[in-house]
């Protein structure tokens, strides 16, 4: 029980918020609203899981948002060219993996500090996208794009199922596969891991590639909710994902964190904006509340005796 204290605490905060909503604004629980919140949160969940893994391995990635935008736009362009959806999905994932590999190569290969490398790639990719598209949407997508060509409800369920499956696979892999153990090992003490025969460089590199691929998948799931792609999509995603991971118990110092906590964190933060609408609270409090939650979560961590 103590081991899962953090995840339970965050889940508890989420439940509290939901209770408040149940009393003050039960309309929040209309199936349509819930599905809207869940489908919007699914891409964030995937990105947050990816960044959580990276943080557990004692790195960080703040280029997620720009990466997300590139994957979305490239997927949209592929679809506009008439490529079949499976191929479009592949484009999104491979593009993400490729960009992630750039980060990974610089960080793991050359030993450069991850925060600065991803700062540089974030700015470069974002400005390049702005220059290229000038804000123009990717339009005229075939009907097979939105909701994978299915009905809205069908597509929404498919989206959630895909996200859930990937999430569960990640949870399983992290816990039961050797590779999962390697992530924690590298994050706790890279030198010890190396002496134990694990290559921190390879693990780190692969983590960035995986993160890129997950974000690419998230970008795809985010994009198929609509009939056109906004090149500005994903702005602020790095903040959301990292905040969710941290609130969910992933320690910035590495070596600790559980994906269930990340799920709780993502859901908690995803509910804030709609909750403000339902509770008729002025929108300008959203950012202040987010900041307060992050600080409270991390401070509470300290009080409960965590590292």
């Amino acid at each position, binding site marked *: 029980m103590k081991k899962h204290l953090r995840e339970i605490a965050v889940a508890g905060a989420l439940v509290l918020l939901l209770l408040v909503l149940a009393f003050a604004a039960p309309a929040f629980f209309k199936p349509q609203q819930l599905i809207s919140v869940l489908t919007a949160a699914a891409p964030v969940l995937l990105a947050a899981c990816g960044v959580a893994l990276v943080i557990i391995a*004692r*790195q*960080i990635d703040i280029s997620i948002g720009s990466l997300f935008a590139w994957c979305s736009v490239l997927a949209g362009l592929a679809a506009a060219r008439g490529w079949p959806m499976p191929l479009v999905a592949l484009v999104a994932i491979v593009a993400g993996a490729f960009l992630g590999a750039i980060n990974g190569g*610089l*960080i*793991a290969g*050359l*030993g*450069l*500090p*991850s*925060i*600065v*490398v991803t*700062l*540089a*790639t*974030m*700015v*470069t*990719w*974002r*400005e*390049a996208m*702005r*220059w290229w598209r000038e804000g123009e949407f990717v339009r005229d997508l075939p009907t097979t794009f939105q909701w994978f060509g299915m009905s809205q409800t069908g597509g929404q369920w498919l989206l959630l199922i895909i996200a859930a499956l990937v999430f569960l696979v990640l949870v399983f892999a992290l816990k039961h596969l050797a590779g999962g153990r390697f992530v924690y090992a*590298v994050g706790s003490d*890279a*030198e010890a891991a*190396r002496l134990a025969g694990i290559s*921190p*460089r390879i693990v*780190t590199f692969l983590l960035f590639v995986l993160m890129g691929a997950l974000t690419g998948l998230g970008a795809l799931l985010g994009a198929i909710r609509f009939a056109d792609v906004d090149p500005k999509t994903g702005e602020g995603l790095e*903040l959301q994902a*990292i*905040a969710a991971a*941290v609130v969910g118990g992933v320690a*910035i*110092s590495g070596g600790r964190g559980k994906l269930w906590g990340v799920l709780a964190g993502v859901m908690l933060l995803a509910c804030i904006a709609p909750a403000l609408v339902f509770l008729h609270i*002025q*929108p*300008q*409090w*959203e*950012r*202040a*509340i*987010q*900041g*307060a939650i*992050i*600080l409270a979560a*991390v*401070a509470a*961590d*300290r*009080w409960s005796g965590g590292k």
Partner: protein
Amino acid sequence: MTTTETSTSQPGSKETDKKRVPAFLRQFSTILLLVIAIEITIFSNTASHFNTTGNFLEIIRLSVEVGLLALVMTPVILTGGIDLSVGSLLGLCAILFGKLWRDGHLPVWLAAICTLLIGATGGGLNALLVTRLRLPPLIVTLGSFSLFRGLAEAVTRGVDNFTGFPDSFLFLGQGYFLGTIPAQLPVFALVAVGVWLLVHRTVYGRAFRAIGFSPEGARFAGIPVERRLALAYILTGSVCGLASLIYVAHVGQAKADAGTGYELLAITAVVLGGASIFGGVGDVHGTLLGLAVLAILRNGLILSDLPAELAGILTGVLLLAVLVGEAVLKKLFVHRSRRLNTQVAPLNPLNPPA
């Protein structure tokens, strides 16, 4: 000239040490000066009116706000920390300054002093969480980054903006002494000199470096780690307040979104200047050079009629190029480190690297 086989050198061998450390340090600032020289050469040919005293003064003038943040970020990064909240704190200080002056009816100078104190308080919040609760600075300042900006938006309801400041105040941001020297230049110079002295000539600066190199080691060496860290963050906060004053004087208005994105520019300048993000390595003149590289780049691109996006792209590429170059140089001149992402510490003859 220098050998790569440092393991054959004797500990305490002065000659190899002198060749290693000075060569490496010398090379880094040199790279920056080289980059600046290249920028100046290129822009002299492509940009109109680039090569004039007036323009160089303008370059400095337009970078003062970010420059102040970068200067004061240097000690923070030296300690191995980081402060992502400086841009948001600038915005919060700006609107509180406006509010104190317009709605609180305080005279401008009094509102200004209060703003400096508010900045210090903001920095104090960061300091408290970092030192008392021992939370990682990255996360603390990520939270305060949202919190400060959020408070600024909440106070102004996003909408309010403050203008109409008296000319005597606006002179700080828009005026020129003797017709050529921008008014904020002496302020910037003072702060630059002050921070340089703090970091390079006082015990505090030594403490920052020691803490960045090894917090536990610093503690055992008798350094009051918490007090020094608090100093770094509180100083950062007050200078945010100062920067916000110059910003408001320069632009002539105070809005909640002032300073958005400045933290990343400041960090870029510091890292470009050769500081290690892990702490322990870095200097103020490096930061100034890093600032110069960025400011000249932006200015030159605009004067060459090139798009602003290019500035962002080139900044990112430059940052990577510098980092890669630095890593490559380290490998050539210092014993190869096998630890992932461990910075190579300033060499101590008593402790040869592992």
